[in-house]
């Protein structure tokens, strides 16, 4: 039904690398990418992250390219607005639409390029995390970083039930499609509502069963989990430090513009 990035993370060769190492790589990429004031650093981060995702994590190139089209739409729409409205400085190009004079200034252009670069660096970091670290590994990270127990419990149960419900939804939808439930807009509205309604009732019943099942196994508000220790290997450490040092160096040398 959906391309779940988690499926790729579970079979990723980087799955058993140290979680904290991966999180550091991603966090540094996110923070430096978003606070850069020139597009050079974000683009470098985006490049490194794509390289790591395709070469180290062995994600199929075709699938990766498909993923990239996702953020493109939103980033393009937002950047167009910035392009026209953020503009000051000298005019580069202008169009007249319905009596409005829309001008692109050089500052607007710089800003739009910068925002695009930041979005891409951020998205690629996110892809790297999502494609190499399955949620089950992140739960142990959450546990050690003292997130309230209720939140972790809730997240784990939600995680489990997402897959259960997705399967139910997919089979109902398949059955509806076969019976021409989506032949036009009105019937697809009706089918969607029916699907969602049934799903709600099904999930409610599942919830009641789950409570019974957990209670009869002495559930006391805490699920215990196994957190394996994954040591960091020397080559990983070397590559990561090289990456961190070059990002910081680039960030310092290219951040000449005043912060916006």
């Amino acid at each position, binding site marked *: 039904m959906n391309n779940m990035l988690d499926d790729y993370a579970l079979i990723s060769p980087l799955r058993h690398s140290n979680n904290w190492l991966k999180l550091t790589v991603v966090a540094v990429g996110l923070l430096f990418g978003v606070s850069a004031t020139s597009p050079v650093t974000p683009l470098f981060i985006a490049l490194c992250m794509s390289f790591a995702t395709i070469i180290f994590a062995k994600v199929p190139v075709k699938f990766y390219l498909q993923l990239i089209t996702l953020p493109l739409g939103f980033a393009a729409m*937002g950047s167009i607005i910035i392009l026209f409205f953020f503009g000051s400085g000298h005019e580069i190009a202008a169009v007249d639409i319905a009596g409005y004079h829309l001008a692109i200034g050089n500052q607007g252009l710089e800003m739009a390029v910068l925002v695009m670069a*930041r979005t891409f660096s951020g998205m690629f970091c996110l892809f790297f995390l999502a494609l190499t670290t399955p949620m089950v590994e992140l739960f142990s990270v959450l546990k050690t970083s003292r997130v309230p127990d209720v939140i972790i419990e809730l997240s784990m149960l*939600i995680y489990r039930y997402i897959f259960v419900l997705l399967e139910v939804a997919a089979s109902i939808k398949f059955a509806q499609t076969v019976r021409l439930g*989506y032949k036009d807009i009105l019937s697809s509205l009706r089918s*969607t509502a029916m699907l*969602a309604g049934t799903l709600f009732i099904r999930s409610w019943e599942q919830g009641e069963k789950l409570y019974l099942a957990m209670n009869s196994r002495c559930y006391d508000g805490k699920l215990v989990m196994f957190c394996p220790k994954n040591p960091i290997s020397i080559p990983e450490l070397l590559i990561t430090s090289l990456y961190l040092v070059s990002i910081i160096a680039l960030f310092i040398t290219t951040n000449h513009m005043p912060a916006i």
Partner: protein
Amino acid sequence: MHIMEGFLPGPWWQLWFAISIPVILYGIHKLNRMMEEKRDLLPLLAVAGAYIFVLSSLKLPSVTGSCSHPTGTGMAAILFGPAISAILSMIVLLYQALFLAHGGLTTLGANVFSMGIAGPVIAYLIYKIGMKAGLNFYFTVFLATAMADIATYLVTSLELALAFPAQSGGVIASFEAFAAIFALTQLPLAIMEGAITALIFKYVIKVKGDVLVKLDVIGEAGLRKIQELTT
């Protein structure tokens, strides 16, 4: 509507985190208190969260042809109240960022504020006022969820406008621009989601109305009245 990773520059993404975190903490506090009273709540909330995720991954028949999907947060607010909805939305948004690459981590604060706080609060208020005023149940549900969507989209536009004010006209001009461009997909979507949520409630009331009474969504008398009207 999610703001993509990296789109919001500092100090704005930090600011939205600072606004959202107290609400989430209040939600956790409330959740802990509710858990002491009703132990069976956690599994139910969990499936509700999973339900929101699955609902938001259903593609809606869209007029404009773009990929649009219901947010489900308006419905969560009617069922569980805004504080719990905020927590559920936060977890669902995190999963959407990690599983489907919708939204992002640095923009999580802003997205939680627009989708998990602003929308549900509006939906909850409209639902409560509508039920007090004795409006038709389904119409109130429609209005509440549609307005929750609209509120979410307006807040998102505001978040973007604050971060990128226009050179001439400032925040207001760029708010108008963002709102106008997103209105193309968001307004039909809001009406769709309102209609679908009303239909969902109709179906749930027909098959398993006692669930809604248990959640204090409607009273016993109200439920019987609605069931009589529809059959």
